[in-house]
């Protein structure tokens, strides 16, 4: 009997996976094979060591954990922090306090608004109010550009993005960078659009057009584009208000790479990149068993441009709060890089994997993890 076969039998014996007859034969072999018996004894000792121990969690642990849960739940919806909410309240209060003063300045004869307003004064007051609104608050159309919440969150949710609803689950270190201050209204040009170029299985890149204000101009949000099973999901951290001409690649983007393994590699010699994307299309953990099947999607990136050192590929990890989609394997074949992804998260939301190609000349990084099979 080969050594390999013996080892397999030994493991099956340990795990009680042998048929009765096989088990009997193996035990007979054990009685005569000293090496095998020693190996079994060693495995049993390891098992005993591992199952030994009765460490208990302390009350302090439960108290701390419940407090942690409560703190996470106390965060406001839509990812609003208390400090942001406080700032918003303070702004509203300031407006409430100073608005009458502004009105009074504009209408000097009006004693605190108590006296009846003549038609002409009424007209002036209306103008003044409009002026105030224009300078203090964006119009509906403009608000989309300056106020990311709650419209953006609703939009993201409608698009199937779970991130906003699950924001409270995001660990602190993975939380978004503070939202940059909104640009002044004078700079707003509502017709400008940003173009995101995503790699696809086609030789030509897929272009996703995003309207400003949808998420980019606010400096937060995400871009999701399903293209031939390869999904780009770049987290916008520092979007600028730029024209389409200025953003013809992904230069305004940085992919979020939380706690990722980065494997440095040089794509200079690669003629193409092969992306293997194994993902479970179902949301959640497939608890029902119905969605259990895993789809393995193979995407080939014809990437002549990527075969230069000036480009890099970044395997985009999960959005904050999602631990999904880490690359399992990065392998270079004669003509391609193979990256296989797997979901690896607690599945608190939809899963997306993807890559992006910034053209900034920085080294190439892959998220990756070696397979042992």
């Amino acid at each position, binding site marked *: 009997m080969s050594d390999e076969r013996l080892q397999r039998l030994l493991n099956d014996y340990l795990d009680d996976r042998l048929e009765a007859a096989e088990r009997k034969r193996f035990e007979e072999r054990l009685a005569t094979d000293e090496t095998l018996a020693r190996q079994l004894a060693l495995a049993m000792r*390891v098992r005993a060591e591992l199952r030994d121990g009765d460490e208990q969690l302390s009350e302090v642990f439960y108290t701390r954990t419940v407090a942690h849960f409560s703190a996470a739940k106390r965060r406001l919806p839509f990812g609003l922090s208390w400090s942001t909410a406080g700032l918003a309240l303070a702004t509203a209060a300031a407006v409430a306090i100073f608005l009458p003063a502004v009105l009074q300045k504009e209408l000097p004869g009006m004693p605190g608004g108590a006296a009846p307003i003549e038609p002409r004064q009424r007209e002036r007051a209306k103008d003044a109010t409009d002026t105030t609104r224009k300078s203090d608050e964006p119009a509906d159309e403009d608000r989309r550009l300056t106020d990311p919440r709650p419209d953006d969150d609703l939009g993201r949710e409608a698009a199937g993005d779970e991130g906003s609803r699950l924001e409270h689950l995001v660990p602190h270190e993975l939380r978004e960078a503070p939202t940059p201050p909104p640009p002044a209204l004078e700079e707003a040009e509502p017709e400008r659009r940003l173009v995101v170029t995503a790699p696809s299985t086609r030789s030509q890149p897929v272009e996703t057009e995003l309207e400003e204000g949808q998420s980019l101009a606010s400096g937060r949000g995400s871009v999701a584009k399903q293209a031939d099973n390869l999904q780009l999901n770049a987290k916008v951290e520092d979007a600028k208000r730029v024209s389409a001409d200025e953003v013809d690649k992904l230069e305004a983007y940085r992919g979020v790479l*939380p*706690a990722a393994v980065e494997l440095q590699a040089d794509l200079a010699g690669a003629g193409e990149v092969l992306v293997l994307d194994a993902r479970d299309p179902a949301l959640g953990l497939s608890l029902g068993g119905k969605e259990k099947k895993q789809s393995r999607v193979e995407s080939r990136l014809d990437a002549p441009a990527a075969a230069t050192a000036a480009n890099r590929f970044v395997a985009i990890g999960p959005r904050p709060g999602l631990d999904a989609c880490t690359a399992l394997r990065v392998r270079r074949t004669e003509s391609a890089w193979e990256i296989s992804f797997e979901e690896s998260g607690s599945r608190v939301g939809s899963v997306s994997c993807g890559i992006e190609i910034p053209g900034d000349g920085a080294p190439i990084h892959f998220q990756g993890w070696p397979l042992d099979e």
Partner: protein
Amino acid sequence: MAGAGELRRRSGVRSEEERTDDSTARLLERIRQGDADAFEQVAREQAPRLFRLALKLCGRREDAEDLVQETLVRALPALRRFEGRARLSTYLIRALTNIWKNRLRSRKRSRLVDWFRGKREDDDAQDSLEATAIDPVPSAEQRIEAEQRGAVVRDAIERLEPNRRLALLLREVNEMSYEEIAETTGVAVGTVRSRLARARDDLRRLLEDRL
């Protein structure tokens, strides 16, 4: 012919298991709404099992507690459907192992960069032991301390490639079947078998002169 469960359903009599499941489902709903009491109740039920695994995975009690805490706080409110307590347990173990893996990856980033630069995956068998080793070669003093059997086993476990380590611990600590491990780790049963075999083989090489 209707089975016992079907007869119970028809007669309106519910099993203890069904009643418990209903109760847990309600608790999970309350957790989603932010009910700390419900959270504590489920946490107390699930945490010990998670902790046993976390302790073996992390080695240090503080790390294990931290891992269990993060798992409970993040995963329990996120569970959308409840389909039985066994499923809940599997879900939480899977969440825990994923969080652990992610932490591990960030810790070992630089080591893996070396792995990728210098070696092909074909080299993995021996390399995985070295590449995933967390601690440097122990000093003589440390070695003497590590002669205690438990420490020796822990040390060897830590040197296993993470996927193999996880499969082994799910089997040996949590006493999961191959099928349960496959579901928890999201791989095929054949892969579980192979990981277990390799883990034991690695352990044998690491331990045969030390135990």
